């Protein structure tokens, strides 16, 4: 992951920023002339996610060892293994996600029968491959959970896992709807929550929240994304 020191267009000219400032930038959530404290120029880079060293502890070693044994392409497919807050995350090369999911489901020592959740996260300005898709798998046999994570740049595509976990159907559609990740091979990749003719992908970090100013007891309150907030 690399940190891109990009500043929104027009930020230094005192003009309104073209894109909302990323949460890591500034202290009060505003750019341009509104800030007289100087703290608006504060930049806090996101820390890079680093792989955890072995042994991972708990059942995490068993899961990774079993996957390594069952899947010959383990070294090529798994970018890194992260253990954080008692959760195991396997960062997978996007092209391999369906293969890995198949083995995670079918191998006797893994048996992740249920795909609990598929969702996206947009790491704008902190990862060149900004769109991450996370798959939360649960093994009912062993009572374990594991997270698979893939990262693609905007406009990137990920093979669908619907052939392995049919439940991923709507959840991948939602991820496409909200983040614009293309799931290749998906039987019906259309929007699911937003209207069909909607433009843009609302959960992306550079998509504004929108809203109108509201009057409350005589004072005008700006919409939430334009209020001053401590960050």
């Amino acid at each position, binding site marked *: 992951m690399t940190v891109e020191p990009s500043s929104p267009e027009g930020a230094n000219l005192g003009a309104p920023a073209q894109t909302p400032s990323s949460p890591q930038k500034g202290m009060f959530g505003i750019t341009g002339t509104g800030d007289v404290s100087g703290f608006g120029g504060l930049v806090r880079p996101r820390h890079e996610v680093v792989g955890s060293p072995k042994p991972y502890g708990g059942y995490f070693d068993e899961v990774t060892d079993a996957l390594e044994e069952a899947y010959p392409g383990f070294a090529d497919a798994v970018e890194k293994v992260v253990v954080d807050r008692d959760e195991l995350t396997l960062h997978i090369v996007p092209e391999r996600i369906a293969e890995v999911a198949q083995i995670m489901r079918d191998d006797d020592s893994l048996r992740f029968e249920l795909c609990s959740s598929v969702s996206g996260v947009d790491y704008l300005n902190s990862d060149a491959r900004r769109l991450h898709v996370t798959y939360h798998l649960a093994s009912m046999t062993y009572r374990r959970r594991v997270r698979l994570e893939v990262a693609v740049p905007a406009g990137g595509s990920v093979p669908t896992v619907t052939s392995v976990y049919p439940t991923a159907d709507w959840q991948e559609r939602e991820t496409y709807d909200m983040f614009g990740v293309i799931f290749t091979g998906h039987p019906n990749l259309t929007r699911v929550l937003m209207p069909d003719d909607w433009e843009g992908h*609302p959960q992306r970090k550079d998509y504004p929240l929108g809203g109108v100013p509201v009057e409350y007891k005589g004072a005008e309150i700006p919409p*939430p994304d334009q209020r001053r907030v401590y960050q």
Partner: protein
Amino acid sequence: MTQSGYASERETTEGRVFTVTGGDWDTVTGSVDPLSNEKIVVNMGPQHPSTHGVLRLVLELEGETVTDVRPVVGYLHTGIEKNLEYRNWTQGTTFVTRADYLAPLFNEAGYCLAVEKLLGITDDITERANTIRVLFMELNRISSHLVWLATTGMELGAISMMLYGFREREYILDIFEETSGLRMNHAYFRPGGVAQDIPESAIKKIRDFLVYLPKKLKEYEAMLSGQVIWQERTQGVAVLDVTGCLAMGVTGPVLRSAGLAWDLRKTMPYCGYENYEFDVPTATTADVWGRYQVRLAEIRESLKIVEQALDRLRPGPIFIADKKIAWPAQLAVGLDGMGNSLEHVAKIMGQSMESLIHHFKLVTEGFRVPAGQVYVAIEHPRGELGVHAVSDGGTHPYRVHMRDPSFVNLQAIPAMAEGALLADVIAGGASLDPVMGGCDR
């Protein structure tokens, strides 16, 4: 004249004029030849009394047999997940509570547990706070199941069940109101504990309810279970076995009605559920009847847990001791409902400058949550509610995704309904207990 999207448009001196034709629907019906083909396309919803909210079902029928079902969701999408990113972590509970409006306390619990796991304070939550959470979640489960019984009864023709179900639910909502100030959308669970302690009057009400409901449950069972119409409408209808459930990601009472006793309260306990004695009811019929039986039994199990929770309730703090996280405000009933406790405000204002600063910083700015991501799953009345929370180290959530069981379970409607009769779509859909507020978020 140009065509863009669904409407043709033309520029006039008065501005742009659109001609909306609804071409989408025309193409569907136009492809059906009424003479050689008996296929009928029926659009059910999004405002239909039998679809449990703004769910739209596009059905293809041959006679009365359903050949194709396409559920269309999204009519209640309110951008809760996006909105969370513009509020601080504590304010998040007021948003998530509005997702699944029949089980608001579960949304709050899932969210709070996720934030607490991110903060690494899961073990520091006080005994009393955990007990109150369990107590209220189980009451909420009962109220949610009662609404299921009510609406499903109505949809299958047992209108009186609707009235009774909602009447009993009102009793539980009164208990919630007594404690949190609100019937629904409580924002009662907060990261670090609960907003208010339970007043004695509410505890007395809960004790009364424990005596009241079992009698009523017997009445409902007497009214529905022996009734031939109810049996005919539910038995052998909308069957989905364990394989089907797991493939479609269906959890909760629907999965348990197929025979798999998967209940996160037992299998992956949280909030101290491992200390309570209760059974996980299952059925083996995998049909609507089985789901009805499972839900009735679950109400009884929840009553058992409520009773145990009341007995476990010991005096003590309801919020985490860490002053960097513990909410410094207190609520009280004022002239216009629940609001800031004036006494507490006077205390803060009069005490010391430092406590005023502390109060101001924590309320306006909020606490920081170390960067990272967690996934927390709890047993919601409809199945697994998962909360995937991501923090970038700031005072606002970076991303929160709710894996709502209604959304995932609704995918199973085609699997249950295709090949069956039109009337069974209603029974099958109702047996999933979808709540569109949770589904669309």
